[in-house]
């Protein structure tokens, strides 16, 4: 299986950016990953209570992304912890291979640093890394350890089919990780989007088919509709970070804004963009004027045809 590494993080004195990106990855896919990371960032205070690293699988048209979010074990020049989104992208044609080895990755991603891209980088020189294109890496199943061989033996015929319509919930803990592996092994179909380590608010923005939420016990069934309304709608309303149009416009109506000269500027600009009055008048009367001509032409034709 061919895969490529990706890393979104910051270094000693350069702010968060795409440090390593796979080749030929679309802007849309990067935006999706950015959105995922932003949501993680907003909810990391909840997710960090678990000893497990959150793990996400997202299928985009050109590739499948298997990424984790968390601490990088580095600090910036201000002494602040550096977080990251890191992992791998697997080209579309190797999707099934990924799905095949995924249970093994799940069993080892934390202990063997499988998705840790930072481990191969020299932190002192990392300020210079901006949008570096990653090369091809190879994942050979015959080189895997015994655990994978054992796992392959236990590869049972699919016993159940995951619903493609509704999500399946597992818990965000060791048991949940095992359940996730089991679900992947027993699923019929190709790679599906899953999130191991999310809050209810995070799931709203993606179409995850397997979800390991914080504070939700394993239900091992399709229970999306059964989540208490209070939990499902517990989106913190104040930070508005996703909708650019909404963030630049004011999210709430402010009575004082009637006196804001900036608003007037905006209206003035909009008026300037409109047609000027003479153009508008011309636009209104020209069609009428032309239609008069047409009527005349028709009358002439009518009179002409009636003449002997």
């Amino acid at each position: 299986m061919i895969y490529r590494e990706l890393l979104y993080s910051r270094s000693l004195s350069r702010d968060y950016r795409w440090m390593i990106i796979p080749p030929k990855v679309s802007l849309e896919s990067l935006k999706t990953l950015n959105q995922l990371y932003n949501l993680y960032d907003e909810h990391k205070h909840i997710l960090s209570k678990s000893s497990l690293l959150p793990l996400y699988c997202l299928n985009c048209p050109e590739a499948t992304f298997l990424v984790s979010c968390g601490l990088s074990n580095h600090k910036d020049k201000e002494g602040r912890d550096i977080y990251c989104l890191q992992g791998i992208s697997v080209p579309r044609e190797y999707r099934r291979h990924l799905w095949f080895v995924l249970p093994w990755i799940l069993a080892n991603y934390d202990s063997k640093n499988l998705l840790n891209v930072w481990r191969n980088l020299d932190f002192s020189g990392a300020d210079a890394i901006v949008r570096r294109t990653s090369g091809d890496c190879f994942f050979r199943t015959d080189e895997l350890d015994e655990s994978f061989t054992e796992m392959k033996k236990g590869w049972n015929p699919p016993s159940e089919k995951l619903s493609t319509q509704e999500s399946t919930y597992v818990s965000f803990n060791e048991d949940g990780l095992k359940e996730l592996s089991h679900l992947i092994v027993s699923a019929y179909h190709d790679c599906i989007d899953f999130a191991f380590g999310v809050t209810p608010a995070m799931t709203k923005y993606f179409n995850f088919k397997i979800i390991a939420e914080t504070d939700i016990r394993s239900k091992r069934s399709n229970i999306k509709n059964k989540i208490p309304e209070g939990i499902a709608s517990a989106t913190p309303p104040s930070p508005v970070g996703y909708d650019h149009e909404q963030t630049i416009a004011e999210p709430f109506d402010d009575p004082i804004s009637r006196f804001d000269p900036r608003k007037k500027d905006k209206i003035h600009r909009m008026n300037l963009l409109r047609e000027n009055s003479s153009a508008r008048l011309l636009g209104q009367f020209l069609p009428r004027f032309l239609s008069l001509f047409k009527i005349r032409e028709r009358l002439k034709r009518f009179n002409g045809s009636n003449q002997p």
Partner: protein
Amino acid sequence: MKVTMVGISGSGKTTYMSSLYETLGDAGQNDAGFCLAPRSMQPFDKAILSIGDFSRFSLADTFSWPDGTQQTTVWPFTVFYNSKPVTYFDWIDYRGGILTEITDIPDSNDTSEITKSEISDLASHIELSNAVILVVDAFVLTYYSNIKEARHRSGARRIHEIFTTYSRVYPNRNLTFVIMLTKADTVDSKWKSDNYAPLIERGLEVFNQMVSLCKQNPAWQGGIVPVSAVGEGNAKRTVVPTGDVMHPFKSEDKIIGFPAPLNAEHVLFYCLGQTLKQMKVEAHKSIKQREKELSEVLKKAGLVNKIWSLITRKPDAESIARAILEEKNKDYEVLSQFEPHIEPLLNKALERVRRIA
């Protein structure tokens, strides 16, 4: 109204949110009687969640600094005076790295499109902001003796570029700005004498271009103030020189005492007070304009106007006058809501903020 913080990564923008939470998150904690709460839609459970979101910035809860900001975040707040709303404002916090990335973008690249869109968003926020807070690390200002180096390393140079462009594009636009000298507790004691007077002078020297723009533009109101999120003696700074010309030092601050923010509320009060003062001027202009329109419309009122409006199916002068009157009354109502708070806000702010004029 909108208030945007402008400063490079690590200058202390998000930490200032923590100071605001500590000083204004609860009305009982400050003598001015003002407090802040996140604006949220009802119902109650959501309102409580949004308060929880704000309180996550508490330094007193965790005794640790907030993580750096990854994305532009808008915090809608309401300012209360004795439990009654005074005004609303949107607080804009963003990834400080954008400021240094303005000139870093390669020619054409997919990911640079993301950065470009971030920069464009930041520009839009600044464009629509009534007040901006220019956030600069006081320690950086004083660490470099070379003024040009201090200007470059602190982000002042980039800020100058942004606001010189702003003043060129909007030569007559009102703007309130405060130069906020963060981490003031960490500077050497020689900068702290006479209520931080030497530090303020250094700040004015570094921000010479902003001072000059403010003096040239009568519609600009500027101020400068040293701020600390934890207060004197409550943080221990370790500075390690690296010998690397790119990053001459590394620093780490540990909170060692109960946070008692210094001058945090004064910055916000100055921004709000000055903006409301500008709104007051606009409100009076609006009222005057409506009165003028009203008298002109009323001159046309009468039986002939009524008949003509019936024929043309347009509103008559009386109903137009009624609508103008309604708007004028609304102007008065809104004005009366915020006008009494302008003076207390500015009086409190000017106890610590030094005006640039």
